[in-house]
């Protein structure tokens, strides 16, 4: 041990790196013990200094691994895109899109945990792809029907054996199968569907819905992945249930919007009319408590910490998409791009100088052309757009500032 320590004061010890390492991490325990035996006169100073150094400690917080990976996954995507033409990480603003890693982990566990076999109806091959051009209906009998219009109206007859498309085509459905029918709506499209019980569903771009062609039994159950607006036909005896990967929404005759986009880490339910009850999905739920909503309330269930937050909202903001309107209030440019990319099936590309987190407000009519809509945005934010087939190149109108 260094001779200097023989004359050290409390202040000296308290500032000495080697001493600090000993107190904090137990480094060199033996050497210090020996030193104390040889210099008992320093015992008091060392004790006091130990107290001081030990007092210089702060509580350590723990962060869930899942959220550390969630952030990383998002950053890695951004990095991977850097070499290619710079595509905006459209997932980024969805809190952490990164949660994708986390959701996939849950996804893999679902077949084992869910008691309801119907959950398995959403297999990967029917997930909506960016490249898909047409909405598809897969009937219970396994027949695929392509829907050519940007917005299709579908309606199933009360008996469940006929499907009407856009008021002009009628298709006979196989009644024997008890499989679910599936409607897959790609980005850039929307669909309206009237179910056999008279319930109306508006299915947004990039979403899918699985449903029985005819409802039998004690419940009316449909499965949603994405965003949809429901006007549920009243039937007090047979409850209507919307199943998402994290939450069941039990309905008692009502109008509401559910958004459960895969790349977000929350499920959002907005109630317009009537009453709904929310419950964690099937076998996943540890606590089967039902949360009830009243009209104008919005519930957000966070998949990560499994908590539900409820607040009063302006419902038209959440449901105006069903009328082809898109309203945004102080939302980041990135969020607006994401929604637009869903409606128009385009990708937004930027050079990294665009301030994507800038908040803008406005209302867009999505029946307008993409050009007209982008013009509105470029009036509100310092960006300009160039459309190149299905890509929109975004550039900043501000001078580039070098990063320090």
């Amino acid at each position, binding site marked *: 041990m260094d001779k200097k320590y023989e004359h050290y004061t409390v*202040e000296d010890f308290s500032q000495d790196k080697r001493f600090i390492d000993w107190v904090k991490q137990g480094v060199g325990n033996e050497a210090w013990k020996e030193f104390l035996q040889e210099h008992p006169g320093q015992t008091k100073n060392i004790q006091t200094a130990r107290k001081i150094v030990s007092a210089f400690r702060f509580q350590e917080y723990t962060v869930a691994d899942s959220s550390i990976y969630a952030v990383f996954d998002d950053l890695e995507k951004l990095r991977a895109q850097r070499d290619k033409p710079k595509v905006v990480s459209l997932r980024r603003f969805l809190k952490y899109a990164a949660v994708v890693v986390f959701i996939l982990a849950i996804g893999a566990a679902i077949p084992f945990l869910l008691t309801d076999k119907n959950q398995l109806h959403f297999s990967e091959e029917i997930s909506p792809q960016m490249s898909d051009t047409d909405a598809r209906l897969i009937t219970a009998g396994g027949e695929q029907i392509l829907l050519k219009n940007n917005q299709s109206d579908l309606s199933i007859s009360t008996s469940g054996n006929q499907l009407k498309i856009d008021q002009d085509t009628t298709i006979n459905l196989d009644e024997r199968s008890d499989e679910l029918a599936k409607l897959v709506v790609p980005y850039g499209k929307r669909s309206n569907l009237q179910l056999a019980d008279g319930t109306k569903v508006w299915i947004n771009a990039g979403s899918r819905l699985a449903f029985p062609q005819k409802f039998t039994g004690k419940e009316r159950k449909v499965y949603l992945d994405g965003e949809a607006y429901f006007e549920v036909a009243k039937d007090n005896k047979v409850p209507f249930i919307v199943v998402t990967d994290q939450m069941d929404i039990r309905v008692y005759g009502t109008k509401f919007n559910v958004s459960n986009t895969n790349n977000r880490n929350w499920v959002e339910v907005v109630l317009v009319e009537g009453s709904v009850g929310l419950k964690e999905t099937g076998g996943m739920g540890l606590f089967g408590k039902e949360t009830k909503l009243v009209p104008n309330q919005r519930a957000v269930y966070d998949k990560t910490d499994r908590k539900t937050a409820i607040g009063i909202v302006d419902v038209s903001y959440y449901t105006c998409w069903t009328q082809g309107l898109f309203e945004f209030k102080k939302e980041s440019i990135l969020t607006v791009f994401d929604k637009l990319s869903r409606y128009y099936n385009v990708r937004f590309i930027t050079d990294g100088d665009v301030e994507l987190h800038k908040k803008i407000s406005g209302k867009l009519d999505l029946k307008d052309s993409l050009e007209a809509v982008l013009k509105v945005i470029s009036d509100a934010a310092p960006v300009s757009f160039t459309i190149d087939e299905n890509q929109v190149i975004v550039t900043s109108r501000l001078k580039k500032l070098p990063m320090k």
Partner: protein
Amino acid sequence: MTKDKEIWERFKAGDKNALSFVYFQYFNSMFQYGIKFRDDAEFVKDCIHDVFVKLIQAGERLSSTDNIRFYLFRALKNKIYKEIYKDKKEEAQMAHLEFTARFALEEEPEDEAGPKERALVRALKNLSDRQREIIYLRYECGMEYEEICGIMNLKNDSARKLVFRAIKALKDNIEDPIQFPILMILKFS
């Protein structure tokens, strides 16, 4: 080239392994530091995310460094500062970012502590937020005074001086708690 320098050059170039190395190496220490300014885990996580987004987007335009931790701590502190003061431009000119965290001992229930411990806690409570931040960086992160001054925009020797004063204050309180003279009087009377 030092190890940090080399890793940083790879990070700038968009190297996959460099990103994951830097991120996982420093996430926790950045988080522990950030949360000392605002006790809100989501907020701090968002700030760290945004710091990295900016670094990734800047790529080769980033300056070089041979001290990644220093670079990241500074960047995170700037980000938190900006976020906290983003709606209050006038105040931001004047304000410095307050290190609001308290020492672990201050959080412990008081009734179990003896008079000496209480005296120590009292002395801790009297330390300024600047002193706390320096102590955190020095004693919990093991930073050099030069780095600490760089992060906190302090003059050369002031970090060391502030720590010295803190130690002195604690020492005086440990060695001469107020109860001490009273006991002496009782003994001799």
